[in-house]
């Protein structure tokens, strides 16, 4: 071993590992303190509505097919269920949209006809058709991660907007504007 070894490591080589470590700390701190994003949005915006054919949710009612939603006029597709409390909260807003002339269809997820009938009696029925997605498969095909969610489908059957969560009174104007814009 040489006692007169004078090769001193360059200063940048000494500080580099510490700088990298501090960089990782800063990155972790920023990411940890950012509030977590819990909603999972569908990635199907501006893509065609996946094809599906659902039976009617109530006995004797017509089913809901994806082709029913490509009628040339924009429609709203509401994913809901009788066991969903926020769905009751948004019922007046859905009624408001239906009264404004927006056609609304519904898909009931993991529901039962008798419970759905009670729900519609209590909260009103703004839907033109309701399809029964008892297995929850169509919900998955749409990229929907919960209820309630409302999709805006344009006249050609493309998904143009997804509203996650209940439609509150302050959301109605925006939704109406989107429907008109897509016309």
């Amino acid at each position, binding site marked *: *071993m040489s006692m007169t070894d004078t*090769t001193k490591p360059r200063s940048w*080589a000494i500080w*580099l*590992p510490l700088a*990298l470590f501090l960089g990782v700390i800063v990155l972790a701190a920023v990411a940890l303190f950012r509030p977590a994003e*819990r909603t*999972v*949005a*569908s*990635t*199907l915006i501006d893509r065609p509505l996946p094809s599906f054919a659902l039976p009617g949710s109530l006995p004797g009612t017509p089913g809901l097919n994806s082709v029913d939603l490509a009628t040339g006029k924009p429609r709203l597709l509401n994913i809901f*269920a*009788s*066991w*969903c*409390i926020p769905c009751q909260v948004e019922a007046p807003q859905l009624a408001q949209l239906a009264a404004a002339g927006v056609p609304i269809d519904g898909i009931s997820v*993991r529901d*039962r006809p008798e*419970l759905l009938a009670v*729900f519609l009696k209590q909260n009103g029925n703004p839907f033109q058709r309701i399809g029964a997605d*008892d*297995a*929850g*498969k169509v*919900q*998955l*095909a*749409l*990229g929907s*991660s*919960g209820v309630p969610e409302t999709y805006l489908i344009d006249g050609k059957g493309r998904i143009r907007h997804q509203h996650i969560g209940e439609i509150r009174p302050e959301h109605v104007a925006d939704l109406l504007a989107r429907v008109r814009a897509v016309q």
Partner: protein
Amino acid sequence: MLCAALAMIAVPAAAQEMESTAPYAYRQLDDAQKEARAQSLMQSLRCLQCQGQSIADSDAPIAGSMRSLVRERIAAGEEPEAIRSWLIERYGDYVSYAPRVTKLTWPLFVLPLALLALAGFLLRNRFRRAGAA
């Protein structure tokens, strides 16, 4: 005995989400090999409701629907990675616990190798001196 009778006629105070009625939400596939492939895929897919759990672990009804989807497709012969891609196509990367190598994530995979290379470069003289001694 009376309790059991009362429990049968009790009406729930608020509507509760029921268990998934999808055919394979709680039922395993008959073919053990296919069930094993389904299980390993389910362990690596995130429950959309209880987002800290995989769909194999989660009690959420939507997880039941996702499990049934996985099992039915595997029973039909579909590849697990195709099912994963189908879900990622609709929900984004968050639904899968296994990160893919994409334009966005390749630095994550390359970084350990780059750091090892940097360490080797910084220590290059140590090895040379030891060899020459």
